[in-house]
């Protein structure tokens, strides 16, 4: 009997791997869809030819390679980074609501952006185009650093970190409102646009940067997969299995900080993906982090990529802020999955 059970377990494992592969293909398809939609109305064949490097008109070349491709890649990578950050946060903070958005990372990044936009204060030595992103990155990273520091001083568990995170969220939001209050009409408009999350400003250097951050963190996340899985059974259990829980939490939060800060600083405040990506992945493949983490990454990429396409097509001729769209398309999917899960 045990052999049959093991075989069934391995079959489930293969099914989950297949699901991850399907998610990957879906994300790729979404990327292509994102590439071929746009206000320029390029024919599909022309876009594909430009992508494969064939001879096309100079304008087409520019639209595909310098406008659409960076935006589409940025959507994919930001979705992946936010969902991975959310998944790992939910596990190490033992809270299903934890994600960069709820713990004040996004609002701190927005505050940093506001300092650049409204007050004109940016990091010295940084080219002006990068001023807003640089500030946002610094503030987001600072928020998570502060969180860890406070948690360490207080010596408490994850509940303390969560409470500090929520408090940080409100503080940053209040300071942001203050800056909005004193901002000029021009700066205000720019700021509002930023806080809604936008892919419009995506450029290759940003894409490369977030790609590098992902490439540097993902291998460590995957290596910690069994440790993170064990943590789902409780802190004492994980420790008794030989997991250095404090160290795991510290390193994981460092990875999360880098992922969240770089994602938010590139595209502004985008809620929901970091929360729903992991939840959708969990409903699809369960909580074994060896499949749950890749599934979260790909779900996040897929959702964000679809949102990017929809932000161009939902209202013809208008490019909606992508942060709005993630919520609009994400929520119904999310609710459908929750309701389906209940009925089972």
């Amino acid at each position, binding site marked *: *009997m*045990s052999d049959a*059970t*093991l075989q*069934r*377990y*391995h079959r*489930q494992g293969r099914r989950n791997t297949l699901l991850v592969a399907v998610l990957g293909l879906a994300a790729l398809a979404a990327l292509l869809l994102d590439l071929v939609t746009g206000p320029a109305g390029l024919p599909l064949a022309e876009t594909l030819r430009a992508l494969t490097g064939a001879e096309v008109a100079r304008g087409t070349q520019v639209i595909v390679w310098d406008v659409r491709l960076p935006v589409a890649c940025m959507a994919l990578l930001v979705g992946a980074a936010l969902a991975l950050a959310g998944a790992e946060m939910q596990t190490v903070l033992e809270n299903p609501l934890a994600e960069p958005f709820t713990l004040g990372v996004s609002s701190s990044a927005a505050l940093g952006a506001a300092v650049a936009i409204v007050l004109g204060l940016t990091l010295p030595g940084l080219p002006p185009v990068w001023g807003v992103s640089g500030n946002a990155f610094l503030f987001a990273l600072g928020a998570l650093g502060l969180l860890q520091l406070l948690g360490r001083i207080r010596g408490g568990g994850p509940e303390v970190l969560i409470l500090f995170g929520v408090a940080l969220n409100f503080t940053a939001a209040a300071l942001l409102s203050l800056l909005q209050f004193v901002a000029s009409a021009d700066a205000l408009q720019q700021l509002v646009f930023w806080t809604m999350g936008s892919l419009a400003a995506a450029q290759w250097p940003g894409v490369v940067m977030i790609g590098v951050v992902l490439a540097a963190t993902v291998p460590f996340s995957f290596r910690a997969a*069994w*440790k993170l*899985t*064990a943590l*789902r*059974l*409780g802190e*004492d*259990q*994980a*420790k*008794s*299995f*030989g*997991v*250095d829980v404090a160290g795991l939490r510290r390193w994981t939060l460092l990875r999360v900080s880098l992922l969240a800060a770089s994602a938010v600083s590139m595209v502004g405040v985008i809620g929901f993906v970091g929360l729903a990506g992991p939840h959708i992945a*969990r409903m699809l493949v*369960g*909580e*074994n982090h060896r499949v749950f983490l890749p599934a979260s990454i790909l779900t996040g990429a897929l959702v964000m990529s679809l949102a990017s396409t929809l932000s161009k097509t939902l209202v013809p001729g208008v490019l909606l802020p992508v942060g709005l769209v993630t919520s609009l398309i994400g929520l119904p999917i999310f609710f459908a999955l929750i309701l389906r899960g209940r009925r089972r």
Partner: protein
Amino acid sequence: MQGLLAQGISVRYGARSVLAGLDLPLLRPGEVTVLAGPNAAGKSTLLRAIAQLQPHGGQVLLDGRDLAHVPMRDRARLIGFMPQSLPSGSSLVALESVIAALRAGDTLGARQADAAAMAVLDKLGIGALALEPLSALSGGQRQMVSLAQAIVRDPRLLLLDEPTSALDLARQVRLLSELRRLAGEGRIVVAVLHDLALAAQWADRIVLIHGGHTHAEGAPEQVLTPQLLAQVYGVEARVERCSRGRIMVMIDGEHAAG
């Protein structure tokens, strides 16, 4: 020196002292020891201190090695710990959770770990639950899975916190006879139990913990006496010897002196 020796264990929660320099006798391999005592006596805290899950003063020696200085990964091979309860919210399946117990702290191959985890579930009679999510299991079933997680690394020392609290009669017998068998193979087994009748039947030794100290210890018939039970629990108890040397503890009421 073979066995477990815990000496001068002290634990404070803020200003409150839970264990005040508690000493345990040397617990030898092959023995099942039950920790008993009133609520909040510090039994669980003691168990967690021995497992090095709880910062504490004093020394815990396993076969002469100070456990505080044994690297975490090696400690996981020496000690199996079963907490009072498993979290109920996880969608991990039972088998996966036992595999995690093997692979989280170690670099065991997948094939080997999967087979070992399945074998333990079968041995405990819960092989049929292997692919059930933990969230779908009853409290008692979760407790059996938790035992599987504790014993799958084949530890020298097994620490169990109220392992039978959610189990029906048949499962209680199954779990306790499994503990006896594990002890018989040369392991040291320490369990917190509230049920003194079970303790009397299955333990080689009972340690009564009261007020942060070891109040009494010894074979069940030495410890389960009306005098000691009155001192520790404040109850009036009758203790009767039944056939085959078994002991029955009957409570008549609260002790007059309280």
